[in-house]
């Protein structure tokens, strides 16, 4: 029954030790590396392949950073770790980041990696759900506040009153019929549902992007303070992360090997096929011609912020210049 912390301590003590050993030798030769930690918003998976690849290929070290990637997950929200100072860097959905900033956490966007929404709501056709209106009055499972803004905006836009049920780390509740629909990322839960034996034809999939809620997702963030005090560190981590993503897309098999090593270390119940699907979907979401890798277009930022404001999740839109640190 034990998860979370116990696992966290085990793995990260070992990993930290290994990194310390590995990097100590490199540090001896050159100037001392700056220590920093990055917290992804979820457990190790291909969603963060770029960071793991950059770490494995030594891109951070090359930038003079002794980076530690912490193990994310439901018990380790990046907002908390950044606030606590446990981590200097974190990944957020753009909506979450804007809301966190509005709520007082001074986040700045270093790179926007996923310029589109991959968020879905998935229901069963067998339950009579074909259109958004069919969700009215149903039970829908949603993730925590950081991930539910777009779906809530979707409900409001469609005038739906749904009973929201907390969504855990799996889609088991949906699979067991506890809810009529559940949240899903195209790169993750959608495939998990398919791999639990439901055929795509049996599902109704509402893509937020198709319903005017194409809100950018994963981006790399740090605190204003860090960006101000150590711009070199911030630029180094950003550059290395970008390089990591480029390398991962160019060498998907190697990237998968690296991701799977993190997955195995974390004893996560996932498999290579699933991670392969995830990497392919993430690549598709991240490599669009309109948005060069890592850029946050002002227009997208404004649209997202205004959408949040309109649904009442934030009251004031932060300045784009203040929110986004241009690419190094």
């Amino acid at each position, binding site marked *: *029954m034990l998860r979370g912390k116990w696992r966290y301590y085990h793995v990260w003590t070992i990993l930290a030790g290994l990194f310390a050993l590995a990097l100590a030798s490199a540090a001896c030769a050159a100037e001392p590396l700056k220590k920093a930690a990055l917290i992804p918003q979820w457990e190790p998976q291909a969603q963060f392949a770029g960071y793991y690849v950059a770490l494995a290929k030594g891109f951070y070290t090359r930038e003079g950073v002794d980076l530690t990637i912490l193990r994310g997950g439901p018990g380790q929200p990046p907002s908390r770790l950044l606030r606590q100072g446990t981590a200097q860097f974190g990944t957020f959905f753009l909506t979450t980041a804007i809301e966190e900033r509005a709520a007082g956490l001074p986040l700045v966007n270093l790179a926007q990696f996923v310029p589109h929404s991959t968020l879905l709501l998935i229901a069963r056709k067998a339950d009579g759900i074909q259109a958004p209106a069919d969700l009215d009055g149903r039970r829908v499972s949603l993730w925590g506040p950081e991930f539910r803004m777009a779906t809530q905006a979707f409900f409001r836009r469609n005038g739906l009153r749904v009973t929201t049920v907390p969504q855990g780390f799996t889609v088991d509740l949906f699979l067991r019929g506890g809810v009529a629909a559940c949240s899903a990322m195209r790169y993750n839960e959608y495939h998990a549902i398919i791999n639990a034996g439901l055929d795509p034809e049996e599902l109704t999939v509402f893509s937020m992007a198709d319903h005017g809620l194409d809100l950018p997702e994963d981006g790399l963030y740090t605190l204003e303070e860090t960006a101000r005090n150590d711009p070199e560190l911030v630029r180094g981590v950003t550059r290395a992360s970008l390089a990591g993503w480029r390398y991962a897309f160019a060498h998907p098999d190697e990237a998968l090997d690296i991701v799977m090593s993190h997955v195995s270390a974390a004893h996560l119940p996932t498999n290579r096929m699933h991670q392969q699907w995830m990497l392919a979907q993430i690549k598709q979401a991240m490599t669009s011609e309109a948005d060069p890798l890592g850029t946050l277009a002002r227009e997208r930022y404004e649209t997202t912020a205004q959408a949040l404001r309109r649904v009442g999740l934030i009251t004031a839109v932060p300045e784009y210049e203040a929110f986004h640190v241009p690419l190094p």
Partner: protein
Amino acid sequence: MSPSPDVRLSRGLAFRLAFCILTSATLIFTAAFAYYYQSSKAMILAGVRENAKNLLRGAVYRIEAPLSGIERIPRFLARGLARELPPAEDLERSLQDFLQTNPDVFGTAAAFEPGVFAGQSRFAPYYCRRGDAVVRVPLGYEDYYQLENWYLIPKELGRPVWSEPYFDEAGGDIVMTTFSVPIMRAEDDTTAVLGVVTADVSLDWLRRQVAKISLYHSGYAFLISRGGTYVSHPDNRLLMRESIFSLAEASSSPLLRAIGRRMIQGEEGFARLPDFILGKPAWLAFAPMPVTGWSMGVIVPEDELFADLRKLGREVAILGGAGFTVLLLVIAFIAATITRPLSRLAATAAQIARGNLDTPVPVASGSDEVGALSRSFEQMRLALRDYIADLTATTKAKERLESELKIARTIQMSFLPKKFPPFPEINAFSLHADLVPAWEVGGDLYDFFLIGPGRLLVLVGDVSGKGVPAALFMAVTKTLVKGIAEQESDPAEILTKVNRELCVDNESMLFVTMFLGILDFTTGQLTFSNAGHNPPARIAPDGTVSWLALPRGLFLGVMEDSVYRTATVTLAPGEKLVAFTDGVTEAMNPGLELFGADRLHDALAQAAALSPQALDEAVMQAVNAFAGEAEQADDITVLTLLYHHADEA
């Protein structure tokens, strides 16, 4: 004699016999064997299916029985907690007692909704085993247990639930599943969920249980969860990580995916697996596990399934092979017994065909067709030998006869004067005669000689009958005429005397027709007599052809007192007299028409101007041309006398 026929016979017949019988037998045997094999396979498969079903049901019961036993206490606790929440110490003691009295349970917790238990925002005491001891351990993420499946799902479903299995790292890398019972209190119309009571079960023993289940040698059992994830599998790498669907996706196998769907939908079944699972054809039997909602499968490789059948098949094939060998030998033996006498017979026949009729035919024992054939052949040989002996004797006799006949003819022909012109010193006449004998002797004759000064006797005759008697009769006649003509000079007298002589002792009743004339070539006066002969032709110097009128007279040799008369004509200088036998006028063409007097008349008219020799040849030619392919039936004789002039004498 081309390739030896006896070899071809024996090989051909025996080979064809063996080939046909063996081919038919092979076809029949193969069809029967294939049918038997397929039927057996289906029967074995049905048996395996039934077997596997029973085995699986037993295994499912063995594994799930303890699990359903474990369900009782959490249910009991949850019901009690729903009625009344005890003090914390009592609750914790209950949990400890539960763990201590149930060795199958790894850990237990009672987790509550925020504020429900004594106003605490989180209250979730958790006890689990550490070695032999039972200890209280923090859940580790009190903030978030509400989102864990073991809490969230029973709470939201409002009923007890066995969770999907998961690794528990704190418990020592064991796989566990948690049974969670929601604590539900009915208040007014609504039912509130106060929390959840759980029991963790290590699935380690379950894995061992499952590992024991096997069918045949390399068959193995596995469990998959409701979501298709491997819960138990000989390959530990698959556990918790891979699902039957991820394997199907990795191998692009819709078949495996379809099987997975049937399994997670709680079906019981038996299916052929894609080959990549074991690297060879295999079958899967599966059955649902009602308590946990999982599914158990047993995989059996097809080669083991059908190992006995294949062994039997091999034995049958060997037996069949042996049977075929025996059959081949028997057929070869039968073929040999049939063909050996036939070969011998054929060899003998070849000897006989070469004319070796004394080679005895081997007589086959037995009363079969070959024996009958041998006997018939022997009879034929004997009959043939006798016949050929007869034929040889007959042929010899015939040859002798023919030879004698030839000699006789030669002698006969040598009687006839052959020298032309016969009297080169006499210019008063020209004379030519020709006789073409037929194959069968007819006995024509002609003769001419001078009797006294200035007188020429000519005669043409035809002996009735054939063969040697006719020839002899002709020779006699000719000799008589010659002899008598030396004393007599009147043609009628000559004929009368010849007739008288011939009639003496003419027992064979042969007779002769004859035209006999004496030309006084000093005057051209021709005296002549006739004994039943056809009239000669006269060709006047101007070429006119007429028939010489003959006095009547009976043929010679029949009646002793026949009377012959002499007639006289005077031949003009240049006139021709053509005497001939009935071989000319009675020559027949293939249409059985006679040449006749008219055609002869025409032929003579055309050849009137020719010399006697040329005229004879022209007549012969005309007859030959008319007869064509028809066989000459009678001797043909033509004699032509041309009277030049008396002064020439």
